[in-house]
């Protein structure tokens, strides 16, 4: 599904990614773990196509085509979803309107039915209920007055509605208490399937107690320095990242 080939990228002239290689098959869950400032978020932004994140060399292949030249919206329409570490608050734009606009953009690209307000709100309500998100939050402005936990849950809800193929979760557990982590993890697990792939970027292994990864990669200085199974995450928990440096 996703192949990252020897990827080098920079932000404002500063090199951040220094040769990332990653191969993700449908249905797999990959955890990327690393200390602060190692470039984990840059990897997620580069995958999502954030402007100013310049790819200097290497390639990103998604479903057999290079997405390097694609705009963020095109990547999203193809099925890449980035769950933000810090979901933004956007004044004046209502959640339900924003989500319908996003949903219909993706449906249109897939040549599938776009939904009117009524039908879409029904879909949104049922997804909210499935994920235990208070449906009235959808009538608020995007993330406006949402608690930390609600913001993260809201990212998962968006993912559930937009039904992407590749879910890139940038620290879905940061800033959450243990109950909220469990709740977010349950949401992610519900969306897992044979055909979807997941990248979980995290600093701590605790969310991996709930979302069990197939692979764990240790990310330092802008590249993967070691890969293994879930036991690698436990090593990090026990001994910290120093053992890898």
């Amino acid at each position, binding site marked *: 599904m996703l192949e990252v080939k020897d990827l080098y990228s920079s932000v404002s002239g500063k090199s951040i990614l220094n040769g990332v290689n990653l191969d993700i098959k449908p249905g797999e869950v990959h955890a990327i773990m690393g200390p602060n400032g190692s470039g984990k978020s840059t990897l997620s932004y580069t995958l999502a196509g954030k402007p100013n994140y310049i790819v200097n060399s290497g390639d990103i292949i998604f479903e057999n085509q290079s997405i390097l030249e694609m705009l963020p919206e095109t990547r999203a329409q193809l099925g890449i979803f980035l769950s933000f570490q810090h979901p933004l608050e956007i004044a004046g*734009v209502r959640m339900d309107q*924003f989500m319908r*606009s996003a949903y219909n953009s993706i449906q249109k690209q897939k040549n599938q039915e776009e939904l009117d307000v009524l039908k879409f709100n029904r879909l949104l309500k049922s997804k909210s209920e499935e994920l235990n998100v208070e449906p009235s939050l959808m009538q608020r402005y995007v993330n406006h007055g949402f608690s930390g936990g609600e913001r993260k849950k809201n990212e998962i809800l968006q993912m559930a509605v937009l039904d992407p193929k590749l879910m890139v979760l940038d620290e879905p557990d940061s800033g959450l208490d243990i109950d909220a982590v469990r709740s977010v993890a349950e949401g992610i697990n519900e969306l897992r399937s044979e055909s979807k792939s997941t990248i979980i970027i995290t600093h701590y292994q605790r969310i991996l107690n709930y979302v069990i990864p197939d692979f764990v990669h240790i990310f330092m200085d802008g590249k993967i320095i070691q890969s293994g199974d879930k036991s690698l995450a436990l090593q990090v928990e026990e001994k910290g990242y120093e053992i890898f440096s």
Partner: protein
Amino acid sequence: MATQEISNTKPYISIYNDVISNINEKTSELVLSAKQKAFNNLLTTGFPTHRKGNEDWKYTDVNKILQKEYKLVEKSFNTSNDRYENIISGLPSYNSNNYLIFINGVFQPEISQTSNESIIIDSLENSLDNYSSIITPHLEDLSTSDDPFMNFNTALFQDGVFIYAPKNTTVNNPIQVINIESNNSPDKNYIISPLLLVIADDGSYVNLEEYCIGTDNSSNLINTISRFVICKSSKLNYSRFQNYSNQTNNINNSLATLEQNSTLNSFYLDFGGQIIRNNLNVELLGEESTANMLGLYLPNSNQHVDNQVIVDHKSPYSYSDQTYKGILNGNAQSVFHGSIIVREKSIKVDAAQEDKNLLLSSEAEAYTKPAFWIYCDDVMCKHGAACGQIDEESLFYLTSRGISNTVAKQLLVRGFVGDVLNRIESDTNNKKYIENQIENKLDSWL
């Protein structure tokens, strides 16, 4: 006194004389003397110049307005009304209509309509004879103004609108004032001086919509007075949509006084015009009086919009809120100068002010300046001002969900004005009209 300031009024002496010689014989001496007094005031002060130190006119160059040569609209000015049918049919309409239509400031009774409700709605010229005792005291008051453009209007006005809501009356449908400017003779720029006088007597409720529409390539000077007298326990909703020609200059002088327990909800939307100046002076005279003032301005290239709001809390327990927002395109300029005055004994005043600007181009300029004069301790006052471009982080968040860049920008820009639109207190039809107008404009920009 600098001679240049006085000399800039000279071209208007003959225009003033024409106005006076055209005055109806039946018109009261008091009206005539108010006009004389106002014109003398103007001759003494001259028009303001935007020299250094003149803070009120620092960013708006009156000379650019005055360098054109203006004439009065000919008495014989004739128009075929069906030309304007399209414009009028595009405006919101109501079941029992009260609308007054003016073309270049000239009242058009054939295409206007007032239903027989309990309130008085007529052209000012018609009303001057019948309701002289109500109107003239206000004209006399206006003639004591020290504001040059107020005096300019008082001296030159020939017609306008008179609305009087007697005690405890409510008008079911909104009253509409429709000002159309139409002038395609390139050698003539008209000076148009409409005067709008609205008196909401005790316990009354008035809902007023004003539409200012430009046609052709008009290049006029429209200098307006809107005088709102809001008496005890009455309420006035006023919504003004201005879309004059991009070569027309519009100076719009509004003065509202609010007595005890009364409310003003005003909304100014500026689309058109070359140089637009809205002076909104609000005096809160009674306890529990409230003024909610909203404004949106969307200037494009070569347009200049200047909003000057002065709220004077002369009474304790009075409340005001100014929320103005601008979206600027091309090399447009905007000015917002909002002042709040809280008098010595005006305890428990709650006053807020906000001006935010979204610049869609790097050439656009927004100047915003809050000013407070607070002479009382026990008050709440707050203000906020901001200028910025579309937030790139928000744009990325939206596009990362599959929304195209253009649609994402539209969402963000509509969101920017959304809180103002949500707070407009006018009729649903008026709100819908305004929302559509804004949407169309933004779609053409983004």
